[in-house]
């Protein structure tokens, strides 16, 4: 870096040890960096949530070892609330809480299910036609928070 010198010492006087760094190139460099970063900045933070469709095996294991007999977990969403069902026949309804779904109770039930089946990673979410998309996404978010990463999204009527 171009270091500027201090004032010239007088003849016979003590030499000054102060040196001044030339800050102008620094400012140039930083200004260029800021301009570039501001131009290329992405302000909207978008991401994705992946789902598998019903019937493809939410675990995604088509050519792996044959599936062991295990319990299947299904979460139904309709206008009256959730219904958490197991293939063993056990079913837990989660009614609406006011006008909205009871997300905290759903989180508790899913947490219990994960404790009961720690190796289980897949779950089927089946929704009614009239359910809002934002509520499905929020439900899927809660399911992902409960450590069920393989979500299969399908129609409650059994179409997809």
């Amino acid at each position, binding site marked *: 870096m171009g270091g500027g010198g201090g004032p010239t010492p007088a003849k016979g006087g003590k030499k000054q040890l102060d040196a001044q760094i030339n*800050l*102008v190139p*620094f*400012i140039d460099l*930083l*200004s260029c*960096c*800021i301009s570039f*970063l*501001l131009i*290329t*900045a*992405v302000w*909207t*933070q*978008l*991401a*994705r*949530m*992946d*789902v*598998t*469709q019903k019937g*493809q095996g939410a675990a995604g294991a088509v050519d792996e070892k044959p599936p062991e007999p295990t319990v299947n977990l299904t979460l139904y969403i309709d206008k009256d609330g959730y219904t958490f069902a197991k293939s063993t026949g056990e079913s837990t309804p989660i009614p609406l809480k006011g006008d909205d779904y009871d997300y905290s109770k759903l989180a508790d039930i899913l947490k219990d299910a994960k404790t009961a089946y720690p190796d289980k990673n897949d779950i089927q979410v089946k*929704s*009614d*036609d*009239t*359910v*809002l*998309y*934002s509520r*499905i*996404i*929020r439900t*899927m*978010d809660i399911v*992902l*928070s409960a450590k069920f990463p393989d979500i299969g*999204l399908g*129609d409650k*009527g059994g*179409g*997809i």
Partner: protein
Amino acid sequence: MSGDGIFPTTKMAPHRDRLLRKPGTRLKRYVPLAFVSGAAGSKKSGYAELNLTSMVDMLTILVVFLLQTFSASGELLTVQKNITLPEAQNFKDLEQAPIIAVSKDSVTLDGRRVADADQLNAENTSDWKITELHDQLVTLKNNFKLLHPSEPFAGMVIVQADRNVDFKVVKKVMYSCSMAGYQNVNFAVQQKAKGG
């Protein structure tokens, strides 16, 4: 115009008097300012030096902040005006894939309109396939296979749906994707900080 004052009186050379006039008093080139000069009578430079250190500090902090928010992948997804994305805390990074935008009025594939509201809200449950969307997705798939013969087809598609659409509409889009060979359906969401 009158002939008095600064304006010339002769008709022959209207600029002459003005050009040859003796200049009046002017400001000095150097004015010793009282607050700059130290002791009275001592000559001191009128230059004041700007302290650049604090400015460099500020610029450095700005650069660090912008570098933290820098995304190397760029902007893969642009949100349309009539679409409000839902928020989620659990998400994955975006990847390059065909983008299906679903609003209350229409469905577009990479910006091309493939269905309108009437088709989306039709109660006919026997056929969920959105024909135009299906056909264009098949074309995209065939193009990918032609252009990248050695690469496996991921079958990935990003659905960018408005938060207030019904699942019925999303279901039709998913069904059309599935029929076209796109099994890996992803929903675009807005990132939400955990605990927020």
